């Protein structure tokens, strides 16, 4: 006999309030998806556990190609350098290196990692305010493209150059007012105050340094694409100026990263499709003033400077999702529903500034209710979504959090819970583990117990109260 009874859906009652939808963002009834990159979510969780990071190699490659296409169709000499800090999982870096990307690194560790992944020194852009003497020595010996952040670094590089008897080509990072962004003046040399030109003169007067590149990175998640038009104009203007004044020959302009990804910044209620500029819009802003500013030098027979891009989040963010599982439902005293899931902010740092998209993996029936999504940590800050309209879910239901490819797999930390596996979907829906889940051994590997604190046979017995 077949059971003719209806499937049970958690009962719900939602009070009508005006203006609710705009404020919270919602999951539409029909919005659900039970597969990621062509692989069943249920099968992924069954095999790899939950939570689980899932990267689509195809999406990652498509994004990188799309970026290059947008720029290379507008400017003849473009080079992409992958921003390691955005996501330095080996699999992500290798896929992008196979797409022709160089590495953009900001520490000795990232430099070592790029080299270990087969990137030759002369294809590494070395940025950042902290470069140790030993990392600089290696970078110089291997011909890396160093971009100087401050005068102390300049003098350190010069002293290494002298010791080794080399003439070292370098770049400097510039900061300036675009009129559309807040100047990140803590990095590099300021243009308006003359600091950058002073540094260029200092380099011109050195017998062992040569200014070859100009770098700038105006910010991150820059929603106003006009900022890049201003940036390109200022950097190209500085290039012409510095060449004329100091006699150097600049052969590359590195415009950094900062293009917004399709994610929803907290406090902005319009969906990303409406506020995030396309890569073509960014490219148009950058390339037009570059071509204008270099017109004369081309007429004089000099090659165009190579345009270097360090795009991070706009390439990797939507290539990765996080599957998480509902562990509990709760009712708050103020009437809101809350859902506890098994992925916390320790693996999803970006939950602090994004309203990530939350997609159910089955057709959730029932009226959407205002819901808070909490992570599993016994910490008040562990909030995945402060407010979302979500139909009732059951324990064991999975949800897809996206996009999560930028900055989570680098800024995550082992805190309270083990960090989960990361898998890569590639080829014909093949799945490879690209980072194993942590175990007790992973966490304690670097610890040492002094002998007097080591566990003994007596442990577990109650302490002697007379002692």
């Amino acid at each position: 006999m077949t059971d003719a009874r209806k499937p049970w859906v958690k009962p719900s009652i939602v009070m009508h309030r005006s203006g609710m939808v705009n404020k919270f963002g919602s999951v539409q009834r029909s919005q659900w998806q039970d597969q990621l990159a062509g692989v069943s979510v249920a099968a992924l969780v069954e095999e790899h556990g939950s939570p689980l990071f899932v990267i689509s190699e195809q999406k990652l490659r498509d994004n990188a190609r799309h970026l290059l296409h947008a720029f290379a169709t507008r400017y003849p000499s473009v080079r992409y350098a992958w921003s390691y800090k955005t996501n330095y999982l080996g699999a992500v870096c290798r896929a992008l290196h196979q797409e022709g990307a160089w590495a953009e690194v900001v520490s000795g560790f990232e430099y070592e990692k790029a080299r270990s992944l087969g990137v030759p020194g002369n294809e590494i852009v070395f940025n950042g305010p902290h470069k140790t003497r030993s990392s600089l020595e290696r970078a110089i010996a291997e011909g890396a493209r160093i971009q100087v952040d401050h005068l102390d670094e300049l003098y350190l590089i010069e002293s290494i150059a002298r010791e080794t008897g080399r003439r070292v080509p370098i770049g400097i990072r510039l900061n300036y007012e675009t009129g559309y962004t807040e100047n990140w003046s803590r990095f590099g040399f300021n243009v308006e105050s003359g600091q950058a030109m002073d540094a260029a003169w200092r380099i011109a007067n050195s017998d062992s340094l040569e200014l070859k590149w100009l770098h700038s990175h105006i910010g991150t998640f820059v929603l106003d694409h006009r900022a890049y038009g201003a940036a390109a104009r200022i950097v190209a203007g500085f290039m012409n100026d510095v060449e004329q004044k100091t006699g150097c020959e600049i052969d590359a302009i590195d415009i950094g990263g900062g293009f917004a990804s399709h994610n929803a910044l907290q406090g902005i209620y319009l969906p990303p499709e409406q506020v995030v500029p396309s890569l073509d819009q960014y490219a148009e802003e950058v390339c037009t003033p570059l071509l204008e500013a270099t017109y004369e030098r081309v007429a004089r027979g000099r090659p165009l400077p190579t345009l270097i891009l360090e795009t991070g989040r706009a390439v990797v963010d939507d290539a990765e999702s996080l599957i998480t599982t509902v562990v509990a439902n709760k009712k708050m005293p103020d009437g809101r529903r809350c859902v506890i899931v098994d992925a916390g902010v320790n693996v999803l740092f970006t939950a602090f500034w994004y309203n990530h998209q939350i997609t159910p993996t089955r057709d959730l029936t029932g009226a959407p209710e205002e819901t808070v999504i909490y992570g599993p940590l016994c910490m008040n800050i562990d909030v995945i979504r402060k407010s979302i309209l979500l139909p009732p879910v059951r324990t064991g239901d999975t949800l897809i959090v996206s996009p999560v490819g930028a900055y989570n797999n680098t800024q995550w930390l082992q805190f309270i819970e083990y960090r989960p596996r990361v898998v890569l979907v590639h080829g014909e829906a093949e799945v490879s583990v690209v980072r194993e889940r942590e175990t007790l051994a992973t966490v304690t590997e670097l610890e040492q117990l002094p002998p007097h604190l080591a566990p003994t046979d007596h442990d577990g017995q109650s302490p002697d109260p007379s002692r």
Partner: protein
Amino acid sequence: MSELQFSEESLLPDAATLERLALSSSGFLFDPVSGHSFTLNETGRDILKILQETRDLKALKQQLSDEYDLDSSTLDRDLLEFLGSVRDQLRRP
């Protein structure tokens, strides 16, 4: 695990409240006293409809287990939460 026993009096909306509520077949609920309106999902609508007919928790549970495919602990848990929030929402000014 023994079946959870609710205190009917504290959990169920009172008879007068149940009587005045206007419930449509689409799950639209209107409380003429507070002026608030609500959306109930299908299960929530069924529960309130049953309660308007018989304000009896035992009968409610029986009828729900006849109509829906679920175990008794899920039913207890979800009823406890749902009736609590109905009571709470109806109490709001």
